[in-house]
């Protein structure tokens, strides 16, 4: 199985430990250079399946201001650009309420995109 060593900077606190994480396939086999358990937890997720929240704005027919939106949960990092393309294809019209789903199951991630304000 292929073994890779990844450099991952922990985002939990200002120390920003630069960890060396050894991965075999989809398994984390070793983590070095961390200062606390939060780093281990973060590295395990980040090395195998990094997740990110995506926030953006989109045009809404009938509103002078763009609508701010977000993924309801973090989505896989490698889906961010597909997600942005899907957002660009949205054609919404007002009124929209904060919390309303504007796009269900974006890019088959199982995560909805929701409005973060009302327009």
């Amino acid at each position: 199985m292929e073994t890779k060593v990844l450099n991952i900077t922990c985002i939990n606190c200002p120390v920003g430990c630069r960890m060396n994480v050894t991965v075999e396939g989809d398994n984390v086999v070793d983590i070095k250079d961390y200062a606390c358990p939060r780093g281990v937890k973060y590295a395990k997720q980040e090395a195998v399946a990094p997740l990110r929240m995506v926030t953006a704005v989109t045009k809404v027919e009938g509103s002078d201001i763009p609508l701010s939106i977000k993924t309801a949960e973090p989505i896989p990092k490698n889906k961010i650009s597909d997600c942005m393309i899907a957002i660009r294809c949205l054609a919404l019209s007002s009124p929209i309420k904060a919390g309303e789903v504007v796009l269900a199951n974006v890019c088959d991630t199982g995560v909805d995109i929701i409005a973060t304000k009302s327009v």
Partner: protein
Amino acid sequence: MLEKHVDILIIGGGPAGLAAAIGAKEQGVDDILVIEREDSLGGILGQCIHNGFGLHRFKVEMTGPEYAQMDIDKVRELGIPTLCDTMVLSVDENRRVVAINKEQGLMVFNAGAVILAMGCRERPFGALGIAGTRCSGIFSAGTAQKYVNLMGFIPGKKVFILGSGDIGLIMARRMTLQGSEVLGVAEIMPYSSGLNRNIVQCLDDYGIPLYLKHTVIEVRGKERLEGVTIAEVDDMRKPIPGTEKHFDCDTLLLSVGLIPENELSQGANVEMSNTTSGPIVDDEFQTSKAGIFACGNVLHVHDLVDFVSDESMKAGKAAANFINKKTKKGTIINMLDGKGVRGVVPQKLKIPVDGEDAENVQVMFRPDKVYENARVKVYNGDNEIYSVKKRILAPGEMADIILKKDIIQNLQNAPIRVDIES
């Protein structure tokens, strides 16, 4: 012309002003007015569409508009009057506030207490003294953020960013996701002033290089920006000849610091601090002028809105106590920046007099550089009254310590000094 009394007048309807209003109302004052110059409440949060707000205060991560809405809803629920689209022109030391708007014209409020909650603004290009032409295409990061997130247009296609403050990092990602190319970020210091998570999630994720110890030394372009030159700097922050790099770009964003917006405070003759650029306050957030309070980014620039809200709630509560004649009467002592410490807030503290209950006091400050495994020590005169170990202290994150009420109760009449010992 309208002239009326109001118990508590709050200048600014952003996170600080809203939290102050909630704090004052919950402490039993009903006659409150929040004045906001924009046409809606919420302040800068409205354009901060990214997430990461509210973790400390609400234990969930929200976007800026969602965080703002929590406070706006609360203010509405409590029935606190607000006046948007209204500009405060002046405040004087007798708490006479002059304001103006299009419907009511000029208004004068005689306030029982005033809470300054005007926030801060970005350091502009003109303050940097960068050589070159004065072409279009140079924006503060916050201006670009407003264009993209509130007005729906993109300020440029090829972007360079000077300064690694959080707004600059956030905008690097924002511009990339909206289809612009971000060529790099230059930071004059050897460390970023932004949060780690923003370096990782806004720069590293998109392969945007961060040039530490670099600054922009020249901008060029006739009508529109055509490019920038950056150079490495030495320990004195002077550019090193021969290290220049050129970037062709149509846009330069600046994220080079925030400055508390205190023109109104100065008009009221409140004593100002040279280190925080905000008013000098005591542990009840009262300025040197009785009945004038300050909180949020107008007092000192925060990194997280959660801490702005906490501080402002306390200021609102203290203003309500002032109205109800419950302000503390104790002897005032000074709080001083010691070794490695900049911008201690509050700068003054009252030693409780007999019969007054002491309360815990949160002391906030910034370290002057990065410290690992350092100790923060607090002295009252020559006596060490508090000491705590800090795993990491960085200028990019405001540090705080809590002086417990038993310490406050036993203070001697001598200045307090906060030191960092590495």
